[in-house]
């Protein structure tokens, strides 16, 4: 049972996250074709390829900086709505790790909470708008409510909540982004960005479980 990740483990984990996103490009493309313009997969791949490169060449980053640099790489290479919101996700919560050498459940919960707030502010959205926030915000709550300090439990809680969020997003009517135009016709399709959140948290859970 691991309760803490060192900064080099965090670096490894974020690289695993990047790989998971890259591996799922087609899933994300198809999801965005259904409700948007079909570029979410390739955009996320661009961003997370840059993340992988950044992290590989800077293995000694602090936890905070690893998240920040991840966010910056996404923000500068992804473009589109995803670049802004996923960049914000990683950057916006990074200060939860400020002054700490490791990642633990509490800080991870704070990270997700801060990230969710930052995304909501940047995107001008609340939950229910059928965005990635509908996976991110429940995940943040799930981790915050986790009693155990086992990180795998925290990651699993996050992933599970995100999965429900993706499911729940199907029933929502999009009120922002390219899917907004669909109105009621967006019902039945999950939000692509929410799927990305799920992939990211799922990769963290796998990484944690592999330790």
């Amino acid at each position, binding site marked *: 049972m691991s309760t803490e990740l060192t900064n080099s483990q965090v670096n490894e984990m974020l690289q695993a996250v990047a790989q998971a996103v890259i591996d799922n490009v087609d899933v994300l493309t198809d999801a965005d074709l259904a409700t948007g*313009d079909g570029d979410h997969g390739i955009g996320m791949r661009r961003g997370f390829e840059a993340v992988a490169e950044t992290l590989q060449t800077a293995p000694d980053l602090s936890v905070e900086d690893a998240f920040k640099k991840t966010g910056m790489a996404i923000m500068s290479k992804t473009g589109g709505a995803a670049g802004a919101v996923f960049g914000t996700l990683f950057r916006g919560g990074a200060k939860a790790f400020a002054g700490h050498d490791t990642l633990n459940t509490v800080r991870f919960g704070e990270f997700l909470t801060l990230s969710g707030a930052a995304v909501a502010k*940047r995107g001008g959205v609340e939950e229910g708008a059928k965005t990635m926030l509908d996976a991110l915000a429940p995940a943040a709550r799930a981790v915050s409510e986790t009693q155990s300090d086992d990180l795998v439990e925290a990651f699993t809680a996050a992933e599970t909540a995100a999965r429900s969020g993706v499911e729940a997003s199907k029933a929502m009517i999009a009120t922002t982004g390219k899917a907004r135009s669909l109105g009621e016709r967006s019902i039945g399709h999950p939000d692509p960005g929410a799927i990305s959140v799920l992939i990211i948290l799922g990769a963290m859970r796998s990484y944690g479980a592999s330790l």
Partner: protein
Amino acid sequence: MAHGPKKILNDPRNVVEEMLEGLTLAYDGTVERLPGTDALVRTDLPDEKVALLIGGGSGHEPIFHGFLGKNMGDGAACGQVFAAPSPDTIVEAAKAVHRGRGILFLYGNYAGDNMNFDIAAELLEEDDGIDVRTVRVADDVAAAPPERAHDRRGIAGDVYAIKIAGGAAQELDTLDEVERVARKAVGNLRSMGVAVAAGSIPETGKLTFELADDEIEIGMGAHGEAGIAKQKITTADEIADQLMDKILADIELASGDEVALLINNLGATTMMEMLIVNRRIRKILDERGIKVHRTDVGTWLTVQEMAGFSVTLLKLDDELKHYLDMPARSLGLSNC
């Protein structure tokens, strides 16, 4: 190279890079690309002027990066295909066009563009103390009802907005004034389109939507965003009627009022079709006594190889007319 719909490309993952190289060369020295970025800037910028920065996703060529030049945009921040440019790109472009009098950001109203340009504007103001104003084109009447007009997408109204803001940014001395004129133009723009066939993103090789052989979609957006409804294909006259009904219901135009009329090819539609549509549009406008000051029929805001077109009306006053009619030269739009 058999990668989805047939296109003449090299590496489908490298299309924006190669396009920007070819585009910069096609400007024949009047525009340069900032090294290591996807930001383009005029090489002939005067020393003191309010700067006009435009931009957005690529794949809509010739807009936006093809609209740089005298009395047009001063610089462009270019994103990947159908993806807003990143804040970095925008910041680089903005710093390079800035000439001490502030910058107007003018772009289409999409969540992605809004967020990325806003982040850039915050950075420029915080880090560099540059005065940035933002005007978003939100002309697509199909995208939201009047009470949510701020939610509308920016489509071919971009063309007139850039043309007018470009003239204003050349002639007017303050950012306040340029912003005021751009905002007036954008407030007077209404557009609506129809989709006949889908386009595809080179990197995915997938069509962005599906339409049956006998179907069209009225009101579809410039990235294949859903329109008002799919329907069986009908005559040019009926389609013109449908578009004009929605547009005219959305803007007050009295007999004697003057408009500029733009019919924009989304990609693969023939000019013959657009001219046949124009014939009907003029009949509709004539019946209401609305005068057409100028007509522009052509290919400016595309959606890759999508077929379809949009109709844009711009309600004019003397000031807008003045800036709209100023001579301009750019790769994608010239005016004389």
